[in-house]
């Protein structure tokens, strides 16, 4: 039984990893009970660039991201802002080292983001569309 569970877990991780690479589209997710249904480009940029960290209904947001160097992070931020990572890092250096805002909380994996968003009512994160679960709600999709 334990072996079967382990095999299922390994297959699941493999599936998520493969589909994450295969499917290019990322989706932005929140807790399924979050009352906000949709975010605009600008609201998302404000959240991930540390300009204004709240949902459209005014609730303070806990912004989640991946560790620096995680491939999804660069893909998400460059797609969202239309700027290379060097410019994004330069901007964040201004914001962070002047003490105005901090980097979002960083996680190592897609599963960790999914788990945190599913258990935190005010959290927001992003994952590959193929990794979506029923515990989270999509509030933004990148147009292909």
């Amino acid at each position, binding site marked *: 039984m334990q072996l079967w569970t382990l095999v299922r877990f390994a297959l699941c991780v493999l599936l998520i990893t493969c589909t994450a690479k295969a499917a290019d589209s990322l989706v932005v997710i929140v807790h399924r009970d979050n009352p906000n249904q949709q975010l605009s480009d600008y609201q998302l*940029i404000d959240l991930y660039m540390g300009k*204004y960290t709240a949902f459209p209904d005014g609730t303070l947001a806990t912004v989640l991201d991946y560790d620096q160097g995680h491939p999804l992070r660069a893909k998400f931020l460059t797609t969202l802002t239309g700027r290379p990572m060097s410019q994004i890092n330069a901007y964040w250096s*201004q914001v962070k080292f002047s003490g105005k805002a*901090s980097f979002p909380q960083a996680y190592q994996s897609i599963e960790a983001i999914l788990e945190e968003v599913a258990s935190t009512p005010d959290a927001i994160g992003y994952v590959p569309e193929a990794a979506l679960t029923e515990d989270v709600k999509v509030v933004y999709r990148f147009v292909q």
Partner: protein
Amino acid sequence: MRSKIVMFLYLVWGLSIPALANDVKVDGFATLDINISNSQTAGIRHVISQPDASYLGEPSLANSSIGVQLEWQSSSQLQWVAQTVLKERKEYKLDYLIQMAFARYTLTPNWQLRIGRTGLELYMMTEFRDIGYAFNYGHPPTEFYAVVPHQNMDGIDITYTYPLEESVLSYKFFSGKSSAPIISDDDFMWDVELDSIYGLSLSAQTENWLLRTNYTTTKAGNTNEQQKLLLNALQQIPQAIWPTRQALIDSLQIKGKRFNYFTLGAKYDDSHWIMQSEISYIDSDSEVLNHLKAGYISVGMHIDDDTWLMTLSAAKSNNRIDPGPLLTTPQLTSLYQGVIRHTNFYLIDQHTWSVSWRRSLTSTLAAKIQLDHTQVEQLPSAFYLHKELSSVNHDNDFQSLGLSLNWVF
């Protein structure tokens, strides 16, 4: 007293790190900068607190720095931030090493409060001028940024942020005290205390634009020892011999004088084209620093990993030059020269053309080169250190070249 409180908080913060090791975020930055110049008279530096400068055949590393920032999120609304910066200084003391040490409390998404030693948001780049990776210039424009050595403030600031459909508006009020050294020729050093700082910053930020304005008023908290000696000497001179004596005494008595800073700035960056400009006006109750107008404008572009900028910066003050005593004696001449040196410390009239190039080597490492061509109408200048000023031919027209590696980690 306030610096002792900041140091105490900093030490408590530092000692608690092992216990919080897993929750504390550690980030840092480093700049390795070398500056060379062809001036034999004007020692090039980029801020008046730098004790070292580059002359012809004497490169300077004074713009190099390394810093570490620690952040601890103790609750969803409360965060603790501490930053230390190591760079060349005239004096090394713990108070100078603590760049920031504050608590940030997010009351609501719109209201944020910071208490402790925070950055002083005077100009657009004041708070991150030591972090070379954060800006496209080789160094912030000297004519605009060199004059104010203060980068942080012990006090409180309150920010109200309001999102619009495609922009974010911020209103920030701050109040506190600050001190920073001014270094000049002949080992002159004055730890300039600014008391009763009150400032208001307004900014509007869209995806590509940043517009900001700031008005800050403050009172000088101390008068330096050399100025006190001059004041004592001036008080011995009869008014009939030096008719402007009383006005000079009033000017040199810096303590309690009000200094006002006004600035307006704009920045555009659409990841292809860049424009950045600021203008400022500094006024005070003292002739020492009065009617100083400064500004710069930069235009440039990003081309793949390269960023090119061309900048024109200028500064001009219109200090009144004291006519001096009616009699000429060696003692009065010496006193007059001493007085003039102080009242004309900020007598500035110069401009610089700059070309800067930045290459992103990785997403966290950048190399930068900047060539400056400066023309000065007036030497000595508060911006620079000097030597051979007694020579007839001052360098009023010189170039400097800065090369740097800038890293964030």
